[in-house]
């Protein structure tokens, strides 16, 4: 029998598949130059955050800081962690954990009177 079934895959075939997977994975991921560009954007966002810190503290400065924090978080997760390019299953696992944490601890902070209205 010459055709390969799942059960008949040899270690050599497995290595070939893995090399192919690594190369294809590389094709789907950003280039080195894109990574450098993303790092520059992240550095600029951090500089803006530090600049905002030195402004007179207000609700707007706090909201701006949270906005830049979420932007930086999203950029790292999407590009450096490849979540934008990888399987939706990985996205669901991570977003699931993150959402659960945000919901649970927001409720905890409410319960303990962290938010005052």
């Amino acid at each position, binding site marked *: 029998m010459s055709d390969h079934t799942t059960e008949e895959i040899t270690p050599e075939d497995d290595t070939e598949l893995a090399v192919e997977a*690594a190369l294809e*994975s590389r094709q789907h991921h950003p280039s080195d130059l894109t990574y450098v560009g993303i790092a520059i954007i992240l550095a600029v966002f951090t500089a803006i955050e530090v600049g905002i810190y030195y402004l007179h503290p207000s609700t707007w400065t706090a909201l701006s800081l949270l906005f830049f*924090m979420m932007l930086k978080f999203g950029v*790292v997760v999407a590009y*450096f962690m490849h979540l934008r390019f990888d399987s939706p299953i*990985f996205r669901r696992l991570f977003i699931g*954990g993150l959402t659960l*944490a945000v919901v649970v601890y927001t409720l905890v902070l409410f319960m303990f009177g962290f938010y005052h209205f």
Partner: protein
Amino acid sequence: MADVAAHPAQAHDTHHQTATGLSNEKIAMWAFLGSECMLFGALIATFLLYKHRAVAGPTPHSLYDIPFTSVSSFVLLMSSLSMALGVAAIQRGDHRRLRVWLCTTALLGAVFIGGQIYEFTTFIRRGMTIKTNVTSGAFYVLTGFHGVHVTLGIIMLLTLVNFSIRGKIPQAKAEVVEIAGLYWHFVDIVWIIIFTVVYLIP
């Protein structure tokens, strides 16, 4: 499985001979990182609750050196870049560059840890220990826990460098580096949150 195959950008993941067509190790790492969100969520929520409840001694806010911590944050962000470049290098089969980028990442991580040790010793010298008040306790536990994660990441990176030198990370096993990279980037995103929520927002 149909769900997996339906997405064009994930064709590379279907090479794995698993029930989902995805790498079990990578699924495990993402599940672990999802659970780590709960751990750091608890520590951040605790800090926020105790932030203004100190009754004695100096609080972290009165001692912060924002320019210094900003440089530390920048260093950790740049370590994420070098990690991403390391993953890209092994996926191309470039072992020399992999080792260079992994060592760079470990070095930047060590610089960050050095900065954290300096910050902690400065705070202690100025009278804020872990037992001074509830705010300082929550601060040290949160940032200390993050520091332990960075340290574990550095050990992981140096182990990978050692494996690479001994030829144990062929291009076919590029995913091992990618999984270690996921952990490292997670440590970075946790710091992104800590830097804003703990240090910058008054």
